[in-house]
Each structure stands twice: as structure tokens, then as C-alpha cells.
């Protein structure tokens, strides 16, 4: 369903494309904003956690991320579809506008992220597809490893600008690019 209203990203004027920071050849990391995103918080109703987990498995076209006990983010599907599909299993709340997802990837991605999160991101401890809730730079972050050297960071919209400033400053020493 095409949206009739243009969604404005809170980072529209901030995440400007280009090459920044130190220049050691190829950029250490590459940053991009996933906007507009579709994000639904899904929380199991009492006694339905198992059935919900089943229902969320192998959902074509949706990305399901763990987001707390018996709680998930369902990405890429519109709110109404998610709610209908999970009716009776879960309470759903639309967060598509409430959170901002930043993708960060590149050879130095772990070196950048370890300046914020206390979570051990070493491959042996943090497989692809894993999500955690943590805090970086005084901001709550939902962090997912999407590829070996690529992570998605989801933060509350209101903090996104501040968080972006911090994140890019941490990346400066390696050189970064915004796409």
C-alpha cells in the first residue's frame, strides 16, 4: 500500500551522504538510515508465548527480532496485517514512527560499537540474527547483527539525532561514509 503522505525522517537533515572523518583508504564503516520503516511491537498474551513464537517463525516478508521476554519487533509488515495475523496471541503496538533504525557495516563495525555497548559482539558470542536490548551513550538501543560485519541499531526517534552525532563521532577515527 503506497503511503499518501510523505513520511519525514528525523534524520533527514542530519544523515547527509558523503565521506567523513579520517582517511585511511576505504571507510572503516558505512552508515545508513532505514527509513521509512515498518515496526510493530508484539507482546505475547498470557500463556501464548509458545504459540506466538511458532506463529512468528518463517514469516515470509517479515523480519522478526527478539525484543525482550515474550516480546518481539516485527519489521517490514504493516501494523494492521501484523495485528490481524496475531489476533488473540499477542498485543501489538505500532512503532513505525517511534523508532529509527540505523544500519552500520564495515570492517571496523565492532570497534565502533564497543565504544557504546557492554555486550560482547565477538562472533563466538553473537551470531548473525541475534538481537539484544542494551544502552549506548545513555540511549536505549535495540541492536541486531544482520550480517557478519553489519548491525542495525534501533533507537527512540527523539534520541536519534543525538545518537547519530555520537555514533559518527566514534566512527571518525576509522573514517566513515553515509549512504
Amino acid at each position, binding site marked *: 500500500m503506497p503511503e499518501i503522505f510523505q513520511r519525514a525522517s528525523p534524520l533527514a537533515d542530519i544523515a547527509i551522504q558523503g565521506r567523513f572523518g579520517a582517511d585511511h583508504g576505504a571507510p572503516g564503516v558505512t552508515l545508513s538510515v532505514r527509513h521509512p520503516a515498518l515496526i510493530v511491537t508484539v507482546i505475547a498474551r498470557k500463556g501464548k508465548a509458545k504459540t506466538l513464537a511458532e506463529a512468528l517463525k518463517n514469516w515470509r516478508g517479515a523480519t522478526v527480532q527478539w525484543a525482550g521476554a515474550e516480546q518481539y519487533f516485527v519489521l517490514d509488515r504493516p501494523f494492521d496485517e501484523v495485528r490481524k495475523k496475531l489476533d488473540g496471541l499477542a498485543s501489538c503496538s505500532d512503532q513505525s514512527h517511534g*523508532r529509527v533504525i540505523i544500519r552500520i557495516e564495515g570492517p571496523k563495525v565492532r570497534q565502533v560499537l564497543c565504544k557504546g555497548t557492554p555486550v560482547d559482539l565477538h562472533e563466538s558470542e553473537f551470531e548473525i540474527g541475534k538481537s539484544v536490548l542494551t544502552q549506548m551513550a545513555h540511549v536505549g538501543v535495540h541492536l541486531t547483527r544482520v550480517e557478519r560485519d553489519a548491525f542495525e541499531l534501533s533507537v527512540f526517534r527523539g534520541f536519534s539525532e543525538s545518537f547519530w*552525532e555520537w555514533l559518527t563521532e566514534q566512527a571518525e577515527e576509522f573514517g566513515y561514509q553515509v549512504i
Partner: protein
Amino acid sequence: MTGFRLDRGGLIDRTAPLDFIFDGKAFTGFAGDTLASALIANDVHLMGRSFKYHRPRGVISAGSSEPNALVELREGARKEANTRATMIELYDGLVARSQNRWPSLGFDIGALNSLASAMFVAGFYYKTFMWPKSFWEKIYEPIIRKAAGLGTASKEADPDKYEKAYAHCDFLVVGSGPTGLMAALTAARSGARVILADESAALGGSLLNENEEIGGMSGYAWAMAGIAELSAMPNVIVMPRTTIFGWYDGNIFGAVERVNDHVLEPSPYEPRQRYWRIMAKRAVMATGAEERPIVFGGNDVPGVMTAGALRTYANRYAAAAGKSVVVFTNNNSGYHTARDMKTHGVHVEVIIDSRKESAADSSGIPVIRGGAIVNVRGGKRVSGVELADHRMVPCDAVAMSGGWSPIVNLMCHRGAKPKWDERIASFVPPDVGGGFVAAGSAAGRMLLSECLADGARAGTLKGKTPSIPKCRDEAFAVTPLWWVKESTGKAFVDYQNDSTAKDLPLAAQEGYRDIELAKRYTTAGMATDQGKLGNVNAIAILAEATGRSMDQVGTTTFRPYYTPVSFGALAGPFVGRHFQPVRKTPLHDWADELGAVFVETGLWMRSSWFPQEGEDWLSSASREVLATRQRVGLCDVSTLGKIDVQGKDAAEFLNRLYCNTFSTLDVGKARYGLMLREDGIVFDDGTTSRLAPDHFLMTTTTANAARVMSHMEFCHQAHWPELDVQYVSVTEQWAQMAIAGPKARATLQKIVDKVTLDDTGFPYLVAKEISILGGMTARLFRISFSGEHAYELAVPADYGNLVARAIMQAGEEFGIAPYGIEALSIMRIEKGHVAGGELNGTTTAADLGLGKMMSSKKDYIGRMMAAREGLTDKNRQCVVGIRPFDVADKIRSGSHILKKDDAPSMAADQGYVSSVAWSPMLNMWLGLALLSNGRERHGEVVKIFDGVRNIHMFGVICDPMHYDRENKKLHA
């Protein structure tokens, strides 16, 4: 040897000369030098002045324990006081100044203190300066404060950046000497994730300073090979210039990496320092041992240093501390220095060994056995020593060795105390469990072979301990000599703080017998080096004075920081504007376009007022109020907490959280709710709407949003896990705006699809999902904080600015104005609605005039405690309105209230003004107040006491609802 730079050897790069300035004079050193080694090579020994007596001081050590050679490094905003010359890597353009002297290092007036030093004993301050009483703050203390302290710190903002980071490993190795290297190699070869950290710029520990032999090569070559191997392994992180400063719960180590302290200025993209929190599954303390001084007369004259330091300057930095050296030792390592110096071609006058016998090899250098130095000659540089038998020995440097103390600090940071080991006459680390073990010299092993074996053992995380390379050992033998009692000169225990050997027995004599009391009375061990060198001597002297053993006296408490850590590193990037993150509402851009002034509200930036040309905040806010009350206004209220509450038991959950009832709320309706804390005091309020039978949208105050969420989580999970309820914060999903005023309905009607906003289609307290602007889903609530006919409209956040602009356009014909939280606040005070000033954590529902909301039909948080006598007393302060008696007067928030004729006193205090506003509707200042038994006192004239502004007036108590008491406008 030309000058004091040795012709050969050392780890300096003679092809890279570096220019630097010390105390205004230009010098040259080499890459690989420290400031201390470069100065020594330039025959500069006088580097600082001591704390109390301003005695001339030179370098004592070659490492981070240095108490004397502290300088002000760099200039201007980068100036850094008390920097150890022994740890400053030389760089081109370095500028340093000596400190704690005036007018100059060579001639320091403060040294006059020495003349009165007979009086300046321990505890001196506590016994005098008491008369006349007023002299303390005015005269004595300023003089003392000026004389005290060391360097001068900059008051300008630091231009450099700092970073924080976390690291994880299976095995942390602290120290990269033979022990640490062996441990790291062993663990890394078995595949473990290893971090090897050393505070020094170069890895290798003592192998850089000594002439050892390991595995058929020089110790240095062996170390370099090991470091190269480790650096190439993907499972190893090698961290030079990284000091582990503390050991914390959970085997977390605090560390500071000095990323750019060895350059003139860091690159703009790099930090000066980086603070690490290292989470180690296991760790080894391979921090080595510290050589102790001996306490004898003049042991502080520049040119006296530890034997190991003298050796290190020669071996590692190719700098000779003197041309003619005397060694004073109570153990074998003094001989080591003597031999090395001889090898370097430096004349060693004599070895004075306090032991009657020893088997150490003196390589033909004369030895005086059973001897002792009683005084050192020379002021700013050693010129000779005086022995116990009155012999005089001329020399220009003294190497002293009082034995070795394992560096146990880190292991004692969590409360364990080190134990005395008679064998090596040292305190050795306590056993703190398997997560953190000591190895090598840090564990009291003084032989190289033992160190290597110990390192290998510590690094064996699984499997068999590997065999170690062959090496040469030299026997370690010490017979304690702590203090030369026959000393004729001042003998220092704590160099920097000028505590002498005599201070400790005096402290004991006066009752300060415990080592901790003695420390505090004499200040021994409290200087920037924290007694790393002399504390053991102090303990020994106190032990003797009080007839106790070393064990009985024990050490003082070891605390972080192993070496002092800059504030900058621990603060990281969270300073200045970045101290806390900024939170912006989805209407920020819209408000900004209209010239809003933003104000910090918690982390949020809220639009506070929207000034037009020439307006100050008050005229702007007043105009905004008038526009709203007369026409229509639009206000950003997105910061209110919004919590989606769903599930079969959602209504029951709310019933238990709020003191009033929510299960009876119809779908599509909103209700004002009041939450108490369990102690019966009001916690928060807000409007909560029922969107479906099992779906509520709760709103909270901006200030309490996070706390309410935690409270709900707690109540649900800890008290009532049986409830089928789910909740999540949706604060950020919605842009929310209040549209208020007589023309609010007309304005909104223009953008609302289908629904007719009349009193039947959309009556007061309706809450519904609607469509606006031809297809955007939104939520509309007919609620009011201003007292006007008003709505709150919520739209998905990305559309916030767009919708706000559309409303402004729609309202243009009615004269719409944006209003900020100043106007909002004025209107709520006019209406007597309570907010932060009244919801202050000490008021009850009844105090706020909301007592009737407390249901008696159900259990809810706070019900029982609210019934206590103290919370129901009729004389409690409750909310009233207050106005000036003379309407020209301005009431100020925070004023106190007295009965009309009472004089000010705490006993007469009746309450205080909690909120004030200039009311453009009533044309006067008015406010809300908390007043004892206030509800009975409407109409009373009271005295308003504003002592801090020295403004006093009379006021009249009235109903809190100052404006439109019949609520006509709300329902208009």
C-alpha cells in the same frame, strides 16, 4: 661518554633527535626517551620541589611510582599539572615547567619553611591556628592553601577528546614483563581471547631495562619475538600505554589507554585518551615488583634514586645519572646496578651493603659491609655521602635498594589485604580466587626462571603447562634495613608529602597508633604516588615504635587508582553539550520554524514560547494565552508519556494502579486518573482512554513517564504476575498537539474527515480514532488542560510537522497562534490545575483537592498508607489559590506564607507559594500555594515572605480555580 648520555646502547633512536623545553630552557633528547631520561642525559636533576618544605627534588624512579619529578606539561588549555617526568614520552616540541616553587625552581622562597621545620611536625596544624577565631578563614587558611598543592591546573575547557569503550576477553594479562609475556603466549597459543596491557609505551617490562638472557638470546630479543608473535594473532589484543587502574566487581578492570599523550596534539579524529572497561573471564596480575628506598638522612637530595632506576636509565635510555656512583643496598640487586654501571663505563665508588655478609658478585668494586649512609651532602645535586662511621665518600649519584615490594595494588582493590612474607621481607598478594591470580614478581617470585614458570602456569587455561625457555638467574637475598637510625639529616619516608622517619613514632606516641591513624596524622602515603615507594618503610618504622610485627601493623587500604586517572578519560565524550543526550519532539522543526525558544525539560527540548518581534518571554506567553483563550492555540504536548496497555486484564490492572476506577470507563472515552505511591503520596496523574475493551492508552506527565513505566512493570511482575496484561511505551510513536480555544472546534473541523465535532458527535472526554486530511489515521481526544474547549490530536510522529502546519493553516482565518509551555503553565495555574510544583512527592490526593477520587471499593497502590494520621491531619498544607492583596504586586514562587500579623519564624510558617503566573486574563500575578488547613482559609489575608529576594507583601487566599470557575468555556 659525552656528558651524561652514554655512547652506546639503550633503546633510544639516536637518529631521531627531539627538541624540548624545560623551565624555559631548550634541550635535546631522542625518540624513546622520557622527559626524565632526557633531562638526566642533559645533566638536569633538579626537577621539582617538595610539598611542605619545598626541598629540591630530582627523579627517584624510572616509572609510574615517581613522587618527585612532577611537572606541568604543555601550556594553556592543555596544561596538565603533576605529570610524572618518568612517564612522559619525549616528543618534538614538548614544553614542561617545574612546579610548587616561586620565583624559580633554583631559588624557591618556600624553602624557608625548612627553617621552621622543627615545629612543622606531624599534627602541627591541629594544635594551633585557633586564635583568634576569625583568623582561620581570613588569614591562616588562605596562606596554608596557597603553600599547599602542587601544580596549577588549567581552568579552560580542554580542547581534546576522550572516548570510552568496553572489551571482553577470556584472559587479561596485566603487565608485559617476562611473566606477563609468558602468560599471554601460553594462553593465546591455546586459542583463548587474550588482552595484554602494559602502562609503558614499550612492551617487555623489566626486560627492556635489564641485561637478561632467555632461551639463548637476550631478554630483550626474546621479548620482542614474543610480542611480535602475539601481535600477529587474531585472538590477541595488545595494548601498550594502557594502565589498568582498578579491579572491580565481576572481574571488571578499569583501564586508560593513553592514545595520544606522546604527541604534541592529537589528530582531530582521535581521542587523547580512551577509557576501557575490560570484562575478563580470568586475569593475571603480572605487574612486577617495585624497588623500595631506604630511609636515611638526605635520601631525597637530587641524584639519589633507586638502584633499579639508575640501572634503567643507563640500560634502556643510555643516560648516566652520575659520573661517580655510590650504591647503598640491603639486598643483592644493588650489586646488579653496580656491575651494569661499570659495564657502561661509569665509575662506581663503592657498594655500601648494610648486611654483614653477602655472596653477591661485586665485580671488583669495593664493598663496605655492614655500612650505612647517615647523610647525603649536596643541595640541588648529590656531592657525597656521609657514612655511619663518619667516613665521607664523594659522588654525584646514589643508588639505593631497600628490597623489592610486589606490586599488589590491583588485587587488593576489592578489600583483601596483602600478607607479610618474611622470606622476601615484603607484603605479597592475597588469594582472591581463581578469576584473578598473581604471577611473577608481583607474586613474590624474584628469580627470572620462577617468573617465566609462573607466567606459563597462570596462562594455562586448559591442558598442560608448557615448559619454559632457559634463562640465567641471580640469587635474591635481602636482610631488611628500613631506616638508618643514626641518620643526621632529614630522612624521608614519603617524599612528596615530606613525612619523615620521626613523624611516625611521634604519631604513635600521641595515640595515633593504628597504621590508618598514623597515615592520616602524618599524611605518609597520601601523596600522588600513594606510598608506592615508602609505605613499607613507614609500616616498619611504626611497627618498631609500637612493638608490633609487620603483620600486626599491616598495610593501609589499597584503593583505585593504580596511578591517577584524568577526569577527561572517565567522562569520555559525555561533557559539554553532550553531557546527556538531547530528546526532540516530532514537532521540533515546526516549532523551530515559528521561532520557538526551547527549554530543557528532563532530556526533552520543549518549545517554551514563540516570541514575535520585540517580545520578551512574558509578553510572548501572555499574547499566546490571549490568543488561545480568545481564539485558538496550538501546543506541542508530544512529551507526555504514552503507554499502550492491552490484554484481558488491562482494566483490572489500571484499577489497581490508579486510585480511581477504570474498569467502568466506556470504550471511546477518556478519564483523568491519579496514581499514588505505596506510601499513600501522589505519584502521577494523566488522562487515560479506552480504545477497545482490552486496550487502553495511558498518559503520564512528562517528568514521570519513565518512572511510571518502571512502576507498572514492577507491580505487574512482582505483585500480580497472574494478570493478562501487556504494555509498551508508545510515547515516541505519536506527535501530539493540543488545540485549544473557542475556535478549536472550527479549526479542527477543517482537517477532520467525516466526523462532525459537535457535542453529540464528539462530546467532552471522547477519545476516538479518526481520519484527517483525507486519509491519515489519527487519534482525537476531547480533553483540556487549559480550561478551554480543547482537543488533543495524535498523529504518527513522521507526520507531526506536516499536520501541525496544516492546522496552522486551517486556523489562520481564526487567528490561531502556537503556544509554548509557558502559556500552557499560565493557563493551568489560572485554572488551578496541579502540576510539578504541587505534585512534588509530599502531597496527598486530599492535599491536592482530589481526595474524592480515592475509591473505597477496591485495592490500589497506596490505599492503606494514605489513611495514616499524619497524611489525613486537617492542618496539612493543601492547595489553595493566592493573589496579591495589592494587585500591582508580583508574587514569586517559593515565597512562604505567614499569618497576617506574625513575625517570620519556622513555627509561624504556614506554607509556601508553589506556582505563579502573570494572568493576562485577570491582569495580575496569581498563583497556587500549599497552605496549612488551606481549604478553610479562602478569603484570608496573609503575609507573603520572600526573604531571599527581600520582597514582602500581603496576599489573599482563594479558590485555586482563578479563572472561569464554572467551566463555561470548557463546555462552550
